[in-house]
């Protein structure tokens, strides 16, 4: 596989949003068919997201050399919403509902490109957490920078809620995994 013009490959970063949305949709629909339980599907989506997140974080850091290690969850929330979501999904969710202890916050997603054409099927399908991949990706990415978080959707417009709200809860700092010789 010799690709002569690597440079061109790099620039071809943009595919149409429709193709992406349709691909994700087809993919979710397929695993919904393949698994018996919706819970299992949600789990798989989360896992896939996780695997994406652990890779994507390096892409993000490589391209944003000004982003350093976060020492505060507010900083993390900010980078996540204003830069992470912006870069990879083209949206900037708002950060709200901070817990009093400052260890938990919500991201309100407006105009999620993943769900543009989606309506959940009746029955089992109503339990599907269609965007679960995003949760997995956040969890995976933050784990690679030594932050263990829990991530879930508490409201979903697909299920008739008023908003799509993603809740991120800080669990602990993974001190053991901290690379030595960090400043």
């Amino acid at each position, binding site marked *: 596989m010799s690709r002569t013009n*690597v440079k061109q490959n*790099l620039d071809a970063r943009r595919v149409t949003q429709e193709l992406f949305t349709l691909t994700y949709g087809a993919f979710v629909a397929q695993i919904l068919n393949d698994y018996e339980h919706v819970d299992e599907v949600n789990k798989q989506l989360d896992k896939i997201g996780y695997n994406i997140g652990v890779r994507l974080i*390096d*892409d993000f850091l*490589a*391209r944003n050399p000004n982003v*350093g290690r976060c020492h505060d969850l507010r900083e993390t929330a900010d980078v996540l919403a204003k830069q992470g979501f912006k870069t990879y999904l083209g949206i900037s969710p708002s950060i709200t509902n901070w817990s009093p202890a400052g260890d938990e916050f919500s991201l309100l997603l407006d105009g999620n490109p993943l769900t543009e054409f989606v309506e959940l099927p009746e029955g089992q399908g109503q339990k599907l957490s269609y965007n679960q991949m995003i949760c997995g990706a956040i969890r995976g990415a933050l784990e*690679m920078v030594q932050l263990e978080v829990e991530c879930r959707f508490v409201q979903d417009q697909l299920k008739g809620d008023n908003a799509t709200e993603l809740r991120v809860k800080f669990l602990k700092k993974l001190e053991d995994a901290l690379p030595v*010789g960090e*400043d």
Partner: protein
Amino acid sequence: MVVHSFYVINRSGGLIFSDEHFIPKIELEKTFSYPLDFVLKQGQKGVNVEFGQRDGIKVGHTILSINGVPVQGNFIDFSAPSTTANDDDQQISTSTSHDIISYLSDSTNYPVTIKFGRTRLNSNEKLILASMFHSMYAIACQLSPELNSSGIRELETDQFKLYCFQSITGIKFVALTDTRQANVDALLKRTYELYSDYALKNPFYSIDQPIWCPLFRQTVQQAMDLLEKTGSPYT
């Protein structure tokens, strides 16, 4: 200005990528008559010059071939068909092979043509050096007189410089250059981008495992070439 080589070390100190971009070939062949005025010593990788430096042959150089026949570690076999140079240490002693040091101390074998030179690092040595650097990097913070020091970013010797960039996720990108090469930090940043593109985004690449991806190697080599020619790793 030269970039000698480039390495990627994972978070547990394992070498997951290495590329030799430009390693000067240091080899010298000369014919000698008895007695040989070098003090030779058996080493892990063959017979080394321990003392007696002359005509460009320096202490630390290894005997690479005798009378045109490549040596096999500390031994030489003139009857065996010359095997292709192997990356790994060969310490084969067969019935027809001679111990190099005793062969060279026998006056009947002279005159003899010996090729001396610096041996290349084999893959095993590279692994050892990578994990050595991994721990040296950590010790540099432990011995810092100043608070919150990072590990080694730049190491200088009279012949080469080593630059290291560690990502927040703990991957180390290391480049070896000559002492005059500038802008190596930009090269390391660039290789981080290439790593995130051609290794991490490749769905068949597993994290922390050796990077086999041909496109990664290709683009890293391009970046090194560019840095040498234009002073910047970017087109």
